[in-house]
Each structure stands twice: as structure tokens, then as C-alpha cells.
């Protein structure tokens, strides 16, 4: 487990908040308590690695709304919902919305601690992926528009000659652009470049969805 990771605990019931943080700190986790969802939204740092333990029913927010509100952040800081009710439809929509876990109160430490551990692992993986995609996107944005066209056609499996025909340029020029693309994207092989193209497409689609 990453020593930097923080468990954010959000519960408007002060005694529950205190008890949960106490339990988690005792187990060696770094914790940060928040007494209200509003305080959480105001002071919370989305770039810190970690996970969020969120009381489901609090004044001003219901858990699902907060989850929606956090959007993509919830992937890097997975949410463990803690609810007084074991309401199946609610827990289903929470899980569908990407929650790491849905636990019912009172929560046994034997359930909570492993849930937190697995959420933190998920956080680490998601952060890694996030960093990778950011890098990939940064490299992609360094391409010129001509290089991008060449990149897209290469990924589609077109041959140099065909690309030259498609773009109305000389095959020689295509080769030069292709070399630049491989260099800028740090791709060793065409297979690797194709894989990168797939990742970028998926990221684009995800961004389109979230808009």
C-alpha cells in the first residue's frame, strides 16, 4: 500500500465520524475526516491518492448525487458507501455508478478494512492508468495535423502507398511523417502504435460520454 494514500471519511454524524477515523487510524491508515459533504467538496484534494468512505444519507446531498458530482475523480479515489439501509436498488445504482463497495451500518472492521485496502489498490491502478493516458494524450497533442492524419491511417492498417494516395502526397513524404509519428509517440513497433491508437480512441469516447 502506498504510504501517501489517504482515506477520506465523510459522515455528518460526529460520533460515527470520530469512531470510523479512530478505527482506521488505529489500523495504520492516514485519514481525513469531513463533517459534511459541503466541507468535503470545498476542502477535498482530488489529486491525492486515496479512497472515500461516504455516508449515504446526509442533509443536502444524497450519496448518488455526490458520486455523480465527483464524476471521473471517483475512479482515482474510489467511493465506499456506508448506508443505514440495505436498500438493494440504491446499492445497485451506486455500484453501477462505479462505487468500490456498498456496506451497511453497523460496519464490521473485518469487512471495512479489506474494503478500504482493495479500494486503495484500485486507486493506485487507476492513477497509474490515468498518468499513462495523460502522457499518451500529451504525446498525441505534440503531433502536427498532417502527422495525425498519417497516424490515424497507419492505425487503420493502410499501407504507405495507399496513405500517399489518400492524402495526395508522395510516398516518400509519408515515410518521413511516419518516422516522426513513431518517434514522437515513442513507439518501437507498428503494433505498439496501433495499441496506442486504440487507447486514444477509448479515451476520446469516454470524454465524449462525460460531456
Amino acid at each position, binding site marked *: 500500500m502506498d504510504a501517501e494514500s489517504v482515506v477520506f471519511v465523510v459522515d455528518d*454524524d460526529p*460520533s*460515527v465520524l*470520530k*469512531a*470510523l477515523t*479512530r*478505527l482506521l487510524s*488505529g*489500523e495504520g491508515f492516514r485519514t481525513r475526516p469531513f463533517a459534511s459533504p459541503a466541507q468535503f467538496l470545498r476542502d477535498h484534494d482530488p489529486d491525492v491518492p486515496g479512497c472515500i468512505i461516504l455516508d449515504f*444519507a*446526509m*442533509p443536502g446531498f*444524497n450519496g448518488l448525487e455526490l458520486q455523480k458530482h465527483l464524476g471521473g475523480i471517483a475512479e482515482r479515489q474510489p467511493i465506499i458507501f*456506508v448506508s*443505514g*439501509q440495505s*436498500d438493494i436498488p440504491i446499492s445497485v445504482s451506486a455500484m453501477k455508478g462505479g462505487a468500490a463497495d456498498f456496506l*451497511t*451500518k*453497523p*460496519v*464490521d*472492521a473485518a469487512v471495512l478494512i479489506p474494503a478500504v485496502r482493495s479500494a486503495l489498490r484500485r486507486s493506485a491502478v487507476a492513477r497509474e492508468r490515468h498518468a499513462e493516458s495523460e502522457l499518451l494524450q500529451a504525446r498525441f497533442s505534440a503531433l502536427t495535423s498532417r502527422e495525425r492524419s498519417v497516424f490515424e491511417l497507419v492505425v487503420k492498417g493502410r499501407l504507405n502507398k495507399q496513405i500517399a494516395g489518400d492524402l495526395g502526397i508522395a510516398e516518400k513524404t509519408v515515410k518521413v511523417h511516419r518516422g516522426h509519428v513513431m518517434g514522437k509517440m515513442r513507439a518501437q513497433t507498428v503494433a505498439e502504435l496501433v495499441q496506442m491508437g486504440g487507447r486514444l480512441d477509448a479515451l476520446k469516447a469516454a470524454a465524449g460520454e462525460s460531456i
Partner: protein
Amino acid sequence: MFDTVPFRLGIVSLRLLLRVLFALATVSAAATADTDRRSILVLFSNQPALPANQLILEGLEAELRTGPADSEQIFYEYLDAVRFDSPEVQEATAAYFRIKYAKRPPDIVLAVGPQALVFIDERRSTLFPQAALAFAGVREERLPLGLPPRTPGILSEWNPVRSLELALKLQPETRNIFVVTGSSTFDKGWERTAREKFAPFAAGREIIYLAGLPLDELIDRVRHLPPNSIIVYLSLFEDGKGQQFLPRDVAGRIATAANAPVYGVYDTFIGTGIVGGYMDTFKSVGRQLGVLANRLLRGDDPGSISPYEAETHRYIVDWRQLDRWSLAESVLPPGTELRFKPASMWELYKTEILLAIALILLQSALLVKSFLEIKRRKRAEANARQSEERMDVAVSGANLGLWNWSVRDDAVWATEHCRGMLGLPRNEPLTRQGFLQHLPADERPGAARRMSAAIQSGDASEAEYEVTRPDGSSRWVFSMAMPKGERGKPDHLLGVVLDITDRKRAEAEAEHQRRELAHLTRVSILGALSGALAHELKQPLTAILSNAQAAQGLLKRGPPDVEELRDILADIVADNKRAGEVIEHLRTLLKKDEIGTERIDINDLVSATLKLCRSDLLLRSVAISKELAGDIPPVKGDRVQLGQVILNLITNGCEAMADRPVSSRLLIVRTAALADGIVSVSVTDNGVGIPTEMQRRVFEPFYSTKPLGLGLGLSICDWIVAAHGGKLYAENNPSGGATFRFELPAASVGSEKWMPNRSYSSLTTTLPY
């Protein structure tokens, strides 16, 4: 040939003639069509949603229908000039009108309100130059300066001075006059008018202008005005924060919140809670404008009609507000239109009352007749015993028993039916002692005392008690004793005994069922709340478990920090107590209690109930605004039952808002100390409101608008409140949603105002359980 020429000429001229005639016919046909299809453009200053515009339109259309206008040829435009008052917008609108009506320019333009009149007047040469102009809804002082003096129009008079005079007539003790206006140009015009016209009224009074405040702040201000205040609300299209409103909605909000009566100048405000004023009725303004338009359509010369005042304004007052603020109807100026006055008993039931009087007269006549007959027969019949038998039959037929106690010889005489009813031995002489013997032991001393007291005082006495008959069965009787004697000196007691067992049983049965039902509703409400209550319990349980496991971890990891352990244990104890309280609360709610008579602080009770359903409210995403009166006297009654009423009203309010967007689900719970020692609790939602046709029925048992409702909640609430000597009201709010409010008498020190037993028996007459 000679004669052919003229013949030819004849043909030519005939053709020509025909052609000319044809042409003439076409022209005259076109001319008729033109007068038939003259078009009217009605230009409103404001937006279509303004209630005033709707009323004007209603009146105008009704009148135009009676005239020559073709409804196809009437066009409506709305400047919405209060919200869009920039010159650019106005210019663009004019340009738009020019294009839109280029092909069919209106023959008559009717301008409604000052902005529309100014708009047209400023552009007479370029916009509809051929049209005749008429206007309505404009005060004389707001006529544009350049308006040709002979422009036909209906002058309105929303007279703030006469409205204020009305207010001062109704409330001569007024010391503070609060004048409310908004911050749109139109609103500011009103403020200027008021500052100028109200100045003479400042002598001995203070006039405070609440102009251009943010609405929230305004509402807050009017909630706490000093005594002897009135509010004159003129107009608020826009508040200090630039938010826009319909002035009528604002009237409702002010009137609801204010602790002083509100007066106004627009009749659309009547019904929102304002008392009244001197005002134009918008519908009649519309009608008069229609009359004017019809005159123009029929060809009256516009130049012959000057602006004039039609019979459109008068004093209008909301009777319910007079009643609410205890203002005297008698001082109203003659000719005042009184709205919402409930019809009197006489007006409502004229026929029934007349019929009842006729029946009583008829009955009396019959009685006199039969009385005379009896007298005649009595004379004829020598045998007194016979008559006694007859009376016995008559009274026992009515289930009455008669007895007579002669004080002098201590002898009790009783009819057969009376003896049967009380379980007295038949055919046996009785003394008072023997007579009293039939009563239950604990009733005897009281009855003996009552008999003696009646003889001594000469006043009748009455009592209800249960008797056990020799066969072991028991009956309830009502007994009344009247002392009789010569010259006001009683020497015997005449008694009537009525068997009321059936009524008593019905009452007891009803009471039993009522208690069962109350229990049932409580259980069903709690069933609905159980999820939320479980949550309430799970909070402390979660804290306890986590704390305990934290302590275990602490111990496992080596020598524990004793301070930390002590802290943990203290937290566990506190949460344990908290869980206990939740359970205790639940238990008292579920208890099948008789009505208690504790003194209750209603504010405490409201807070406790809100706390109980806190999680339920969260789950339903309902925001709560708690407005508790600071100084409120205690009430006397049953904490659990009253709590149940509050809980029920809250649950109902939440359910009514279930279909509203989350952001607007607001429930206001308010307590107030009213005059005459009355305490009121109200729950206001902004949900769907109560459909008008159901307003009468909401308190009826088994009546429900909810698909799964049992229809008992509100009827039980109504019963509980009635049993506490109070009353439950339901009404729709002017701004949407409904308010349920109950009033209870404050617990008066020493005197026993509240008598639950009375209320129990009234149950049988009010609720058909």
C-alpha cells in the same frame, strides 16, 4: 343600315353599361367586405401571464363578441415592457410590427397600460399611421404629454390615496404605514406617486418606504412590524436583487408573512390575503375598452370621444381578511364590494328554515288541538286510574320511567316501566331509602344529596349512572329530578328516568374503535418510518462497533494508551445511551395510551418530532424550515398523540411534494402564539395542493387521494386535535402547495378548560366510525 347604327350603338352601350354595373358591384362588394373585416390590434404593456392582463382580455373579448368585430381579425401583442425596457428592444419591436402587419395594417389599435400607449404614441407617424388609437388601463397623470387631447380611452384610477383612506378608516389607530414597492421602472413610478400623495397622511404617523428590497429581506421585515402598523403594497415586478416576479404572487407572500394587514390598489391581489383598497376591476376595464372599440368599429368619430372614466373602480374588500384582523365591516364606505363573504345561515338555508318554522307552527297547532281534546276527555272520564295507565303506556313507549317522591310521607311512587328499568320490585310500596337501594353503592350518597339539595333549592338536578338489575344485567340511565310544590315551596320531587344504555354502548364501542384505529395508524405510520428509524438506531450502533473494534486493535498492538482507551469507552457509553433514547421514543409512540394531560411545550414537541423523522426527510430530499415562535405558552394534553398529529402532517407534506423537483421540496413547520391564548402549529408544503373538490373531504375517514392510502391519517389527526379542544384546518397556499394548521387552547393556570370525556362523546356525532 340606317337603323343598324343605333342598334349597334345600343349593343355597345349595353356592354358598357353592364361592364360599369359589374365594376360597381365588385367595388361595393369589396367595400362591404372591408367594413366587415376591419382588424384590431390589442397591444398590452405587460406579459401574457400577468393575471391582470388575463382579466382584461376576458372582459374585452366578451364585449367584442357582441360587436361587429370578426374574431379572425383581432391580433394580440405583448410588449412585456417592465422586464424589457431598453429603447433598443422597443425599436426592434416596432420594426417587427411594421413587417408583421405590413400586409394587414390594423384599423384600430387598443393600447392597454401606459407603456403600450407611450409606445404607439411616440411612433404614430411611422407605425400604423392610418389606425384609430384607443387606450385603457392608464391613470390620468400617466397620459403621454404629446397625446392628442381627443384620443378615446378609459382612464383608470388605482387610487393609492383612497386605498390608504380605507385602511385608516378601518384602522384609525394606525401609527406606522409601510409602503412596499419594487425596483422596476414601473414599481418606482408607484413609489414616486406614493411619496407625493401620501405626504399629507404623515401627521401623527410615520410613513416608511420599503422600496426596492430583496424579496427575502422584505418578507422578513413584514414579519416583525411594530404594533399598529399597516402595509400598503403597490407593485413589485422586480426586487432589489433583480429577480423578477408577478406582483400578485408577491402580494400573497407579503400577506402570508406579514403580522399587519396589507392594502393594495389592484383587484387581482384580492384573494391573496390582502384586505382591499380602492381599485379598478381589470375585467370591467377590459369590458369598457371593448365597448369603446365597438363604437369605433361602428363608425363613431374617434375625435368625438375624449378620455373618460367609466364605472370601473370602486372599494373592494376581502371579507375573510376583515374577519382575520377583526376589522369592522360597518365602517366600510357605502357601495364597497365585499368579496368572499360567506352566505349567512338565512341565505344558505332560507327554504329549509321557512319549512322548519311552518312545521313547528303546524305541530303546535296539532298539540293545542290534542291538548284540548285530552282536557275534554279527562272531564268526561271519571276514572283517574285509566288516565294514569294511558300516560304510563305513553311514557314507557318513549322509554321513559316516571317517579314521584313525596317528602311529607316519604313515599315513592313509580310507573311500572320505571320499576322495570331500575330493577325495583313491582307492586311494593317504596320509601326513599328503598328507592335509593337500587343504585350502585358508590352512587347512593351522591343521589341522596342531590335529592335533598333539589328539594331545598328548588332547582332541578340530573345525573347519569349505571344500575345493576336483580337478574344481574346492567343498564345505563339518565335521571332528572324536578322539585314541585305549592307557592314555590317544594314538597315532592318528580323524576324522569331514561334508559341510555344503547347510546352509552355505542359511545364506548366508538371510543374503543377509535383507539384501535389510532393505534393502527400509528403502527402503519411507524411501519413507513421503520426504515428511517432503523437508520437512526444504526448510527450509534456503527459508532459503538467501530469504537469497540478500535479498542480491540489498540490492545492487540501492545501496551495500550490508557487515556485513549478511557476516551473510547466514554464514547461507547454515550452512543449506547443515544440508542436507548431512540428505542424509548419508539416505545412511547407505540403505546396504546389513554389521553394524557401533561403540560407540553409545543416547540419542544415539534423539534422532537422533526428529529424523529430526520432521516426520513433526508431520504425524501425534503428541506425543512423550522420557524418556532419565541414565547409560546404550554398546552395541555397528550404528548404522544399530538406528536402523532405533527408527524402525520409532516409525512403528508412530504408525500405531496414527491413529484416536485428536489431543489424545491421545502417544508415549513411553524409555531405561533395567537391572541386569546391559542397556540397554532402549521405545516406548509409546496406540493400539489388540495384539489378544490376535495377540500371539504380531507378530514373524512377512509377518504384518500393517495393510491395506497388508508385515508385515516387526517381524520385521526382531526379527532385528536378536537379531543384537545382545538381545530385542524387545511388550505391551499396562494403560491402553491397546502398548509395544514391546528390550533390548541393554551393550558390556562388553574381552570380546567379541557374535558376529554365530552369530546369522546362528540365523536359519535362527528365521525361515522
